């Protein structure tokens, strides 16, 4: 039995245009045939396109949390407008769907999928065989890459941060491409982040950057260099350990593998035991930003695990070149339920991913639960944050939910205070992934400034030597006031 509604189909669409086009097909009467199978787990039909032959599309709900969409059209959008239209038609005109035998080719594909799923399960159960020779070759290449990263880092220190110009930045960018070839995309991105400190808003290097602007990035630049230095040291040690012991899997208790650019597969995370079963998540904040250094859009969701209270993040990377074909994430106002949640290695706010998810309405008890996880003692949180920041490769901008007594102003600065009188100042400085949010506070109703929960991002400013927070949202008894986008 298929239980979907319009909101479900809207959310399944890769973008608003695809959803609109899908609806349009239904209204234009483009569907020539609308069918479901006897068990009502499969929708299939024919949709007239611009050519002579109609497209054959189907939506397979054998796995309800992970439906399979198939279409004979050449679109690279997934699901395509024909599959979306098929689902809209089902929601709007269920009676138009007639029970029919599953076409042979579709039945074959379904069987293949079932076989693949079975094989996948078997494979997952079977210990993974590793091509040791290939792995050793890859690790050696990575070690060579690490040598290059070290050379480039030391060269940068030798040149001096103050002497960086468009020419040297371009040279470094060019050489950094070799790190990608050496299976070290993470290290390449880390180097990009350094050079991008000297770039304008459009990502290009401007030789005429004002001295004051350059001065503002020097402390961050030095921090980046010491991070690259630590990456070289820790990365080399880690790779050497793996080269010496070919049985060794990627490390899961440190983020070093991700720093070097290891793309974790869900199977690996499962194998490493980094999964949680039957999880409910509540989205606390969402933002979508343009990462010029990586040349991609990044959709970031900040989620609270309603069972453990841990705050984790989802990241959806959409490279410029493929942005049209990758579904963008969106704000999520319900509770997401999933049978299995994969958690990446990480410290305070690990990255999370899931394969199938079903939404359920947000209830007051969810907010109550979420609020109960907030930290009411700022001193303890500050201590934990500082301990975390000490690590050169740690997340420098961790997110916490803070239960506060009140938010107010001291000398024009926004300040949040806990029940014991411990205070933190609020700022937007240095946290540019999300848009500025402090200026929104005077537009909020007074009641949100007393005894609520503030979801905030911490940052230590190396110039002012202050540990401050950026407000992301405020969780009240009745709703989540989102301050970023």
């Amino acid at each position, binding site marked *: 039995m298929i239980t979907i509604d319009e909101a479900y189909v809207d959310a399944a669409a890769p973008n608003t245009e695809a959803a609109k086009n899908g609806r349009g097909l239904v209204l234009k009467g483009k569907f020539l045939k609308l069918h479901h199978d006897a068990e009502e787990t499969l929708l299939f039909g024919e949709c007239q396109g611009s050519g002579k032959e109609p497209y054959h599309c189907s939506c397979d709900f054998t796995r309800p949390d992970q439906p399979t969409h198939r279409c004979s059209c050449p679109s690279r959008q997934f699901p395509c407008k024909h599959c979306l239209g098929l689902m809209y038609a089902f929601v709007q005109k269920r009676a138009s769907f007639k029970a029919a035998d599953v076409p042979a080719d579709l039945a074959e594909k379904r069987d293949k999928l079932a076989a693949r799923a079975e094989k996948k399960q078997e494979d997952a159960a079977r210990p993974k065989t590793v091509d040791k020779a290939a792995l050793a070759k890859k690790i050696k290449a990575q070690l060579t890459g690490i040598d290059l990263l070290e050379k480039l*880092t030391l060269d940068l220190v030798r040149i*001096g941060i*103050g002497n960086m110009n468009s020419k040297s930045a371009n040279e470094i960018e060019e050489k950094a491409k070799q790190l990608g070839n050496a299976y070290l995309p993470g290290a390449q991105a880390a180097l990009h982040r350094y050079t991008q400190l000297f770039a304008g808003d459009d990502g290009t290097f401007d030789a005429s950057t004002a001295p004051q602007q350059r001065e503002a990035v020097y402390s961050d630049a030095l921090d980046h260099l010491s991070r690259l230095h630590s990456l070289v040291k820790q990365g080399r040690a880690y790779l050497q350990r793996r080269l010496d012991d070919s049985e060794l899997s990627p490390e899961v208790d440190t983020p070093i593998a991700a720093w070097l650019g290891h793309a974790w597969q869900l199977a690996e995370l499962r194998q490493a035991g980094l999964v949680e079963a039957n999880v409910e998540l509540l989205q606390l904040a969402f933002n979508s930003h343009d990462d010029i250094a990586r040349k991609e859009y990044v959709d970031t969701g900040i989620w609270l695990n309603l069972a453990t209270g841990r705050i984790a993040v989802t990241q959806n990377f959409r490279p410029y070149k493929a942005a049209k074909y990758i579904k963008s994430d969106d*704000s999520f106002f319900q509770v997401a339920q999933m049978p299995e949640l994969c958690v990446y290695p990480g410290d305070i706010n690990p990255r999370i991913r899931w394969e199938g998810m079903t939404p359920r309405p947000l209830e007051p008890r969810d907010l109550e639960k979420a609020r109960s996880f907030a930290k009411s003692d700022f001193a303890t949180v500050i201590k934990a944050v*500082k301990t975390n920041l000490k690590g050169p490769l740690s997340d420098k901008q961790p997110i916490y939910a803070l239960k506060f007594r009140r938010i107010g102003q*001291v000398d024009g600065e926004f300040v949040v205070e806990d029940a014991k009188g411990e205070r933190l100042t609020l700022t937007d400085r240095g946290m540019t992934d999300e848009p500025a949010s402090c200026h929104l506070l005077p537009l909020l109703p007074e009641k949100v400034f007393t005894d609520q929960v503030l979801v905030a991002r911490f940052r*230590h400013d*190396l110039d002012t030597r202050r540990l401050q927070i950026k407000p992301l949202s405020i969780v009240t008894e009745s709703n989540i*006031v989102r*301050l970023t986008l």
Partner: protein
Amino acid sequence: MSIAVLTQVYDEMRRLAIAGSSVAAGDFRLKKLVPPLEKSGEKAPVFAKVAQAATAVVESNEKTAPAALLELATLVNAILYTQGETGKPGDLQPIETVDLGARQTQASARLLKPLLEALFTTGSGRLEIIRDAIDRGVFADLRLVKAALKGLDDPYPEIGELIADKVLPMYGLAILPEIRRQFNLKGKAGHLHRLRVMHRLDPTGTREIVQQTLDDGSKELKVVAIECLGDSEEDLTFLLQQAKAKAKDVRVAALIALTRLVTAEAIEAVTEAASGADLAAIVNGLREAQVPALRKLVIAESEKQLEALSAISDKKALGTAIERLMVWLRCLDGRHDADAESLLKKLFQQRTALAEMSAEPSGTDVNETVAYLMANGSAKMQQVIVDGRESLTGPPLSYSFDAARRALPAKKVFEMYSPYLKGKPDKKSKKAAEAFSQSEAIRNALCDNSSGYAWRWGFGRRGMREAPPELDPRWLDVAVEQADEVLMVQLARPNHPALNQWLSQKFAAKKKATGDVHVYDILRTMIDVQHPEATACVIQTLQDLAKSSSSSYSYWLTQIIPSLPKTAVTPLEALLPTLPEKMVNPVLEAVLELKNRSDDVAV
């Protein structure tokens, strides 16, 4: 003490990293810090480590310096990260908020993104997206505040105006600090809006900025700043100076601001300017002026100008004098006081004499102005022009009719004015021609064709009158009886059998759907009066269009489809698959708009 040394180490290390590690070897300033570090290291081992790393830098050579400097940086940064200052001493004051709580919305990223793009980029079609967002209340999402502020600087001026006029005032005083922060005294375009919005939201609090703008602002901003003056007598001296400026925009802004001040000097300056060529430019100021002396000036100057007319024989000079009288009369718009009433009454009584004055503009134009002012004036004035209707024709009779609609019950208005409609085109006699002219005046008034006057003589938006009360239902009976098609369409209302029958016949008699724009008027009227065949007729017209070679006229149909009843959705959806590809998309959009309409009231 130890941390102080550490921050010194950080500063030196940062200096060396900026300059390049080649200058690090033997650096005496870093070397000087090693002993105190070693001393601190006796108590806390971490300082000993820092001392060791600092020594390594000092003793390094060109080859080893970069690594040594990075070791030191890693160590010092790690320690300083644990020393970040938090908190803020002082009295925690509440945040001054503007409670938008009840009106706040939280839109999804997918909804906000296109709007943000419209506000942050350039290109066509953006104004429509922004207008739509305003109508849907999306701007109540506080996360749009920054984008809205950016919209003030949009290269397309209408967007800036729209944001300044409709969006930013919605956020209230809370938006002021940000607007102030962005405001640039030397700016143009968007900063003109910023100053106006700031003054609109907080005239007193913006006074200082207005003063600064006057001192150091750009030329364009100074003019806006002058407009914002006049709330305090302190402005007098400056405004008096500016009222004599050579630049007209500066002079006019100062004079308008002066009309708000009750001082002898201000009155004198305005009086002097009004006696010259600037009169037309300061009409708005004189009209809004509450200063008794200026209100008297308008009456006195109008009377003086009126008296002077009879002595002028030269046609050109007479035209100039009449034009000036009309400018003075425009200052009376909206005034209901006894002096204004007395002057208008006097002018109305002299209408025959005025009508005989032939010039450009003529005495007849004065009569039109007087009639307009009376119809929009006090109840007493409205009664005078209603009582005088027998002697009126043309636009003054239309205004008399408007005045009657405002002052009298609908039934009475019908009885008084409906006989005029019987006049037929007949030029055989002067009397018949006059009857026809009167008939046309009432028809124009019923069709609201007279409102153009307000624009013609510069009343602008103020001239757009409020909707008058409902008409007596018998007007439509008369229109049907006389087979007056224009009036029938104009006065159409639901459930009028005779009208419905006429509409059905008219639609059936149409020659062809394509190219016959009249058909669309008929269809529009059918929808407006909820004609039972409206949907069927629209569908038939769509089908006819589908068969024709040209479908360009389908645009008109797509405009009226969203006004159909919701019951039309199903038959229209059924029709969609039968339409040719070139028609289907615009019709589909229209059907969707109808489907998504929140109520069933025809728009």
